């Protein structure tokens, strides 16, 4: 088994056993949606545009939680130091943490997407299928940024505030593109209209996964 697979399966196994992170993320996603529904009038909180916006807000907040927890899982008993001493590449560690965060986020957002369709009075027919690849792209981009930056914010006292302040502005392009593409997916619009937005998402992902892969070694380790 490769190191990447070993670390990823270890994280998945730990999560299955405690489930704390995923439950928290699902709960947070749901809370965000509930708050939005009550904050906006029912006349406003309906339709694909509002739904897409709400879902991506949930993505950002749940993602923040997921990313910091993925790294925090290594702080118990200082396992992170064991990983750093081991022969594992820093970049491989980044990839594994990114993958783990992304998977947890997707689970949470899967639940969130179903709730969104319900709360915002949409049609289920094929909407979720069209939505899935867009959410996957968004989650990968977010996890790429958040995994890299959480290593930095985790070092600061009060770093829970710092992570969103760093991630959210950087995530703006994906947010803009993702919401528009999701709107198209949730309405019956042909996906060709969302082609440009999906292109931006793909470029975003490629750019920041690569950047994180190359830069992670500089933010982890070195006491």
């Amino acid at each position, binding site marked *: 088994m490769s*190191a990447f697979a070993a670390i990823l399966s*270890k994280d998945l196994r730990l999560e299955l056993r405690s489930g704390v992170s995923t439950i928290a993320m699902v709960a947070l996603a749901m809370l965000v949606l509930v708050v939005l529904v009550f904050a906006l009038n029912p006349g406003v909180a309906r339709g694909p545009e509002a739904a897409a916006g709400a879902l991506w807000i949930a993505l950002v907040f749940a993602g923040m939680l997921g990313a910091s927890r993925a790294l925090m899982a290594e702080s118990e*008993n200082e*396992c992170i*130091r064991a990983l*750093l*001493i*081991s*022969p594992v590449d820093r970049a491989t560690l980044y990839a594994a943490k990114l993958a783990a965060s992304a998977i947890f986020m997707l689970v949470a957002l899967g639940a969130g997407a179903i709730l969104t369709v319900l709360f915002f009075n949409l049609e289920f027919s094929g909407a979720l299928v069209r939505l899935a690849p867009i959410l996957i792209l968004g989650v990968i981009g977010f996890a790429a940024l958040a995994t890299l930056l959480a290593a930095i914010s985790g070092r600061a006292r009060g770093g829970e505030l710092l992570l969103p302040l760093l991630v959210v502005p950087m995530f703006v392009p994906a947010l803009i593109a993702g919401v528009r593409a999701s709107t198209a997916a949730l309405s019956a619009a042909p996906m060709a209209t969302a082609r440009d937005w999906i292109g931006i998402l793909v470029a975003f992902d490629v750019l920041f996964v690569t950047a994180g892969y190359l830069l992670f070694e500089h933010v982890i380790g070195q006491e």
Partner: protein
Amino acid sequence: MAAPIVETHALGKSFGLVPVLLEANLRVASGRAAVIIGGNGAGKSTLLAILAGLSAPSTGYALVFGQDSRRLDPDGRRRIGMLSHRSFLYPNLTAAENLEFYATLYRIENPRGAAHSWLRRVGLANFGGERVRMFSRGMEQRLAAARAMIAEPTLLILDEPFAALDSDGVAIMTDLIRTELARGCAVVASAHARLAIEGVELEQYEISRGRLIPHPETVEAPRAGRLRSLLGRPNQ
């Protein structure tokens, strides 16, 4: 004499404005064991962290397997085993799963077999399926030792290896250290007070004002464990 496994040259480390190590010089050859003695905050753990490649020195350098400790390649890192203050174990994984995980990272063939064999060696064969969060401190320490040695390291870094061990645990740890040394491993350990390990010749160093002073005269044992006070025999 063959090239030493560990070599430091005027190693210095400051955390911000607080100096901890000044000019630490150390040489440990294959099959030899060095013990660094000092009180809390003296710099033992700092020194060990530098040797493990976790921390970069502020001045001077450390060579491990002839490589700069700051830039150990994966092959070099594969040959280091470390036992730290914290156990490096995942509480929600079983003992066997922990060992298998690390065995896989260290590219050991048949990680499962290695895990079970090491569980036996440290007397935890019956606890392989238990989650580590259920373990007592002594059991954790034994498992952590197994974790450190499972990859057959060439350098063993042991931060207070006998802490929290009962007499059985001490016997097991002593046996493990002896075996590793016989294999040609170099051992760098830290301790609060002068240490004697049965059947093992130790090079003792005291950390004093950031320097390593070999063969100290007498060092107070602030809190000697029952067994350790019995081990006041001279080195063989």
